[in-house]
């Protein structure tokens, strides 16, 4: 990311994301009509679905950035992968929480082993492991490479997991599972609301990404200065 893009992102993204989020909240609670026969909890869906989509996008970014890092060896890609994984985890948690809040009144249960739910849970576990791995090796070249390997393997695994979990549940139809209420989206106001929520989540993701990357850059700078201070201190020490 070059300097001008960053500056632009720093000034533009926070207010844009906040405005979009406020607009989304307003639309969800005031503007949009409740879908027929769905009850008021159906409104959760306007945040739930865009966040879920952005979770996949975030983990997709992790995979691409990881592959680029292994290929080119540029630390910048590694930073993007790390930041995106963290935000993906945040979003993934939110998907699970909002999903449960919806499932409880709707299906009368907090959790069902529905294919999508299960895939999301496994996704959460994989990337929890990813962040653990990062924490365990520390910010070294090795840690970056290990994380990149997991970032790629995890992404390759997602479709396979999804397939297997889907078969697992459909062959064993123990719990009756309703699909999320996509059928109710005939009203144009609903479509507008969903679109705004999508935009809001995309902006939010980008904003968080920029903030996290800024943090990493600052940490690098601190490390660099610390090294310099240390070198000079040892130089002074031997001269004295």
């Amino acid at each position, binding site marked *: 990311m070059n300097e001008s893009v960053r500056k632009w992102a720093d000034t533009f993204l926070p207010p844009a994301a906040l405005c979009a989020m406020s607009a989304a909240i307003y639309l969800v609670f005031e503007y949009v009509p409740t879908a027929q026969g769905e009850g008021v909890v159906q409104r959760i869906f306007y945040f739930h679905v865009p966040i879920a989509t952005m979770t996949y996008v975030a983990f997709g970014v992790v995979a691409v950035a990881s592959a680029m890092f292994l290929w080119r060896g540029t630390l910048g890609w590694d930073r993007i992968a790390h930041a995106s994984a963290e935000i993906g985890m945040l979003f993934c948690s939110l998907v699970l929480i909002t999903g449960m809040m919806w499932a409880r009144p709707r299906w009368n249960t907090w959790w069902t082993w529905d294919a999508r739910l299960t895939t999301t849970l496994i996704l959460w576990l994989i990337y929890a492991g990813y962040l653990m*791995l990062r924490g365990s*090796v520390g910010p070294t070249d090795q840690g970056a490479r290990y994380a990149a*390997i997991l970032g*790629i*393997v995890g992404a390759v695994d997602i479709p*396979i997991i999804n397939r*297997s979990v889907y*078969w697992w549940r459909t062959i064993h139809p123990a719990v009756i599972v309703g699909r999320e209420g996509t059928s109710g989206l005939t009203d144009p106001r609903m479509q507008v609301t969903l679109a705004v929520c999508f935009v809001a989540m995309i902006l939010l993701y980008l904003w968080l990404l920029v903030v996290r990357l800024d943090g990493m850059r600052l940490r690098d700078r601190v490390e660099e200065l610390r090294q310099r201070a240390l070198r000079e201190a040892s130089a002074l020490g031997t001269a004295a």
Partner: protein
Amino acid sequence: MLALIRKDLQIELRTKEALASLLLLALLMLVVLSFAFDPTSALRSESAPGALWVAVTFAGVSALNRSFVAERENDCLQGLLLCPVDRGTIYLAKTIANFLFMMAAQLVTVPIFVFFFNLPLSWGLVGVVASLGLGVFGLSAVGTLFAAVSVRTRAREIMLPLLLLPLIVPVFIAGVKVTARALADKPLADVAHWLHLMIGFDVVFLVVGWLVFEYAVEE
């Protein structure tokens, strides 16, 4: 590559450590799971495949954990990397060696499993072994890669299962399904899609592992 596999087997035969602990652990898991699932109940044919796969998976993870510990002593992995062979070849050899260990352990585990769960001896067991072969190979393909990674992390004993278990969920589910089918002595044609899934998983992750292994062992 044959030399590499032979070397791993040679070390194993010398120490018998991994194989013994692998066997013992699988056995223990089966015993403990028998308590949990009550193998005398009529439901045993439902719970038996799950018990077998839990035992295989956890014993396998601990065997994988050990597979790079031997390479760490005296920095042997460095010596290996100094040899004029491709890193991908080292990965393939390690994967096959790990696969062979785990399968060797199955030769003992499966009969004991049959006795413990009081299962009929039938041709269905061939299907069980086939599903174990495919599943264990997938476990070995992903596991070898991450064993190389986790061996250099802090708390490596816990790191490997943490990373590995969510990744092998497809193999686990498929293995349980095929095993159940085979134990019921029904034709495997009905679970062909699961077999395909396992084969696909094995191939995909063997290729991915072969491609990225060099990054896992590089300093």
